[in-house]
């Protein structure tokens, strides 16, 4: 993470030259690259060329520019992060949303995203719901045994955690399969969503 946002500092005309062409610099561009503060002095002409406004007495524009720059910087940084730490499995099989797109917009694309991104989502959900990780409320009446399934899942997940802790990997694999099967269960949204919407259109 950058320790400060990029900003532009207007030169007081101390005579130092533009880092691109050597003419008197009027603006210093400050950005953060790879965690280090990088300064670049620019003359009016070069500044315009790289898209920086140098009109004085325009604090708002400066602020806007620095906000835009900091966003670009953050995006670049996110791209960097992604290279180092692989994102959860590329895209949701149903709606095609990538986890990065989710992180940028804060919205998921479809019901299946929850299953697809579950390992990455679970800790996020827990954080934003004060530790809540399992649904504890109303269940659609037509989901039938959904409530039973939910309770079964809770206990299976506990068993799984135990199995992993005690290094019973075969048992853990079996439990994992069982959990997946129940999760896919008969609830409408847990079916193959893309097929359902195809039928709807037909």
């Amino acid at each position, binding site marked *: 993470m950058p320790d400060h946002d990029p900003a532009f500092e207007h030169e007081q005309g101390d005579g130092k030259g533009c880092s691109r062409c050597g003419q008197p610099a009027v603006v210093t561009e400050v950005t953060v690259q790879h965690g280090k503060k990088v300064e670049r002095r620019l003359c009016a002409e070069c500044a315009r060329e790289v898209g920086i406004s140098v009109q004085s007495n325009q604090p708002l524009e400066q602020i806007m520019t620095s906000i835009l720059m900091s966003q670009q910087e953050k995006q670049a940084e996110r791209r960097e992060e992604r290279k180092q730490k692989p994102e959860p499995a590329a895209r949701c099989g149903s709606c095609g*949303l990538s986890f990065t797109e989710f992180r940028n917009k804060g919205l998921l694309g479809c*019901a299946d995203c929850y299953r697809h991104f579950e390992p990455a989502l679970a800790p996020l959900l827990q954080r934003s719901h004060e530790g809540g990780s399992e649904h*504890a409320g109303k269940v659609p*009446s037509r989901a039938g045994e959904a409530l039973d399934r*939910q309770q079964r899942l809770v206990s299976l997940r506990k068993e799984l955690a135990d199995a992993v802790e005690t290094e019973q990997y075969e048992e853990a694999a079996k439990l994992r399969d069982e959990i997946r099967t129940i*999760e896919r*269960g008969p609830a*409408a*949204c847990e079916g193959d969503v893309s097929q359902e*919407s195809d039928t709807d259109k037909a």
Partner: protein
Amino acid sequence: MSKQRFHDHAEWLRGDGPGHDVVLSSRVRLARNFAGFNFPGRASQDDQARVMELAKEHITGLGLDPGVVWVDLEALDAEERTVLVERHLISKQHAKGKGARGVAVSNPDERLSIMINEEDHLRIQVIRSGVALAEAFDQIDSVDDRLESRIDYAFSPRFGYLTACPTNVGTGIRVSVMLHLPALKHMGEMDKVRKAAKAMGLAVRGFYGEGSDAVGDFYQLSNQTTLGRSERDLMVGFERDIVPKVVEYERMARKNLLERRRAFLEDRVWRALGILRNARLMKADEAMEHLSQVRLGVVSGVLDGSGLTLPEVQQLLLFVQPAHLQKARHRQMDQAERRLERARLLREAMGPSA
């Protein structure tokens, strides 16, 4: 939307119901999505239109009593949509949205509204005057039951009702109360209220929700988490703990003002009324601030004998808003004209020196 479709009086500003001296309204909303369709933000135009069709068929097919008015937002102009925002029937986001989207509103009481294709396929809302969370919840729960007997909702046993934004997943419920806390504000106690709310995991918002300032000392208190806690549990927390505490706190502050700083209170209230009765130009936020003081005067008895009633004062909170003002005057106005007309409307409504 014809002028007759919506009454002048909005349900949540009726000014009755228990605790109405402090609580303007109680609101419950549920976020729901149809199984088999991408969430609205990622739906194709066709799918969005299909969701609208299905929603219309099922919502109007419920045979609700009172019946609903079906509003296609694409067919409304910007001002008509703003009227709906000002009445708290749709969100700003929904008004500004794109593509096939709508709202069903129970008519004439406007207690129930269902937004279609906002952030989620359905955002069901019930709003009531005063402290009436249990009633609001019972109504919304029954509408939800009836809808889900016809529609497959996106639901997972682990995560509950699946929503576009993960902060709503689980119960998909948002419970909120609109509070009027002018005495706590006068006593400089609002920081404490905010801190307490934060500690209880509640959000504090202004009159027009997310991102709006607490103009006129009106605050919305709502839950922030929806996963891992049942609807009932949340409701009980609001009804037994949160709401009574804040109401009590504000009442104590009012009592304190009345008993120990009566001249200060009377001065604030009468000064505000004087401005509303005499000003020639008025901004919406300024009107809200003064109406807030007048409201305090009406409920605390300071304005007894003035002839002003709570419902009148509260309806003015709505009619000083830009779109409602234009609606009342049957014409479009620019900002300068609105200030002039707003001041005139207030003088007419609040007499006697008009």
